[in-house]
């Protein structure tokens, strides 16, 4: 594959005695938009966490192209209701992986943060307390944080959960726009609605087995 960013080779993942993902192979290249689908408990989150290095593989490996960083948007993180944190603090924390041993942010880092907020149309939220935002605004802020971490590959775990129809469409439009700039995206989705399959590829998980399709193939076979 041209411009390959991420490759899973015979990746097996599990917890205790339970093997969740069995020998998964997957390639993600520049500009790909992969929707990961499967029933509840099928292992969608486990697969992406394995790809992110958050779960140690039982066997197999994850190969990330040199210099490629992943920006992650976790599923429904249970943020403390009274957490004192501004949008600025949250978005800037996306830079951590690139800071090395640097202790303080540089002026250019703040410029980058404002660029991301502008891109997502939330410039006016910079000094607002994160916990006081609406669900849609929170997701945009967390997307901005993920974009601070990467210019190559985004991994989103059910980002449209808890969003109303309008916010969900708006969020998907933003993702499609980002994808058109060359950013690769892996997004877990519920697969309840064909409207959620906005990418050009679908990865389906069933009984721990991972199968890849183009979206057109998947729609023809299963929808």
């Amino acid at each position, binding site marked *: 594959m041209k411009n390959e960013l991420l490759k899973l080779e015979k990746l097996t993942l599990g917890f205790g005695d339970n093997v969740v993902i069995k020998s998964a192979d997957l390639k993600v290249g520049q500009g790909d938009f992969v929707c990961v689908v499967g029933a509840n408990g099928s292992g969608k989150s486990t697969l992406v966490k394995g790809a992110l290095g*958050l779960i140690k593989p039982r066997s197999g490996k994850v190969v990330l192209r040199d210099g490629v960083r992943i920006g*992650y948007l976790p599923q429904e993180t249970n943020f*403390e209701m009274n957490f*004192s*944190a501004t949008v600025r*603090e949250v978005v800037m*924390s996306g830079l*951590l992986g690139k800071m090395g041993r640097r*202790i303080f942010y540089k002026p250019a880092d703040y410029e980058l943060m404002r660029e991301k907020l502008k891109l997502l149309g939330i410039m006016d939220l910079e000094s607002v307390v994160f916990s006081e935002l609406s669900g849609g605004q929170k997701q945009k802020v967390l997307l901005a944080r993920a974009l601070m*971490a990467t210019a190559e590959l985004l991994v989103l775990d059910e980002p449209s959960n808890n969003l109303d129809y309008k916010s969900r469409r708006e969020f998907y439009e933003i993702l499609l726009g980002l994808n058109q700039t060359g950013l690769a995206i892996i997004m877990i989705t519920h697969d309840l609605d064909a409207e959620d399959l906005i990418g050009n590829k679908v990865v389906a998980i069933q009984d721990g087995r991972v199968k890849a399709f183009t979206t057109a193939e998947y729609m023809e076979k299963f929808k």
Partner: protein
Amino acid sequence: MSTLVEMFSYDFMVRALVAGVAIALVAALIGVPLVLRRSSMIGDGLSHTAFGAVAVALVAGVMPTFLALLIVLMAAFVILWISRNRKVYSDAMIAVLSVSSLAVGVLVISLGGGVNIDLNSYLFGSILAVGWMDAVMSVVLAVMVMILYIVLFKRIFAVTFDAEFAQSVGVKVGLFDAIFALICAVVVVIGMKLLGALLISGLIIFPALTAMRLTKSFKCAIIVGCIVAVVAFLVGLILSFLLTLPTGATVIVVNLVIFLVAVVFNRCL
């Protein structure tokens, strides 16, 4: 004014002031992340463990601070393991550790009848129990934790706000938890002499809760938490001297009053 001069003409008051301010600062620094991550009960569990350890040390004739530190450190890592293990009810297990240690402490003191031990001073604190060694250790700890905070501030925020994301960008979350548990253990062992095993965890929790009510950003919460902790300790120490009240209880009640005032002035900073 002359009363204040008289108050700090006593060596034991100066030791209490130095150790107390340093411990209050450190407790506030670790308090905000611990409270936000819903791990503040670790302070309570460790303080009761420390009481049990001190009781055993006194009866066995071993240096109490040293043995307590060793046992509390081990307990801190056990609590860490418990809180990560999904197969156990972590809050219940911390409570089990906590009450068991307290019970063992009381039994050991009771059985070691020949030993002259003031149970109250370990349960509720005594400023006379703070030696220069404790004061120096507290200051060294405070300086070390402040340096650690400045160097790791961005990582501390990231782990506190969203540990999973922090891990995904390469932050070693497990190491962070271990460092916080270790600092918590030292705070508890030294602070127990001042505030007592039953009250020391208040020094970790109250300033953090107050700061979170008043502030809009994490950075402000940390700074305000430190200011609240030091002011509450100083006011508590002075009041306890003037009114001949127990220091630990007075400091905690001052913290409670400040917290209640903060509830009224929600998020003004």
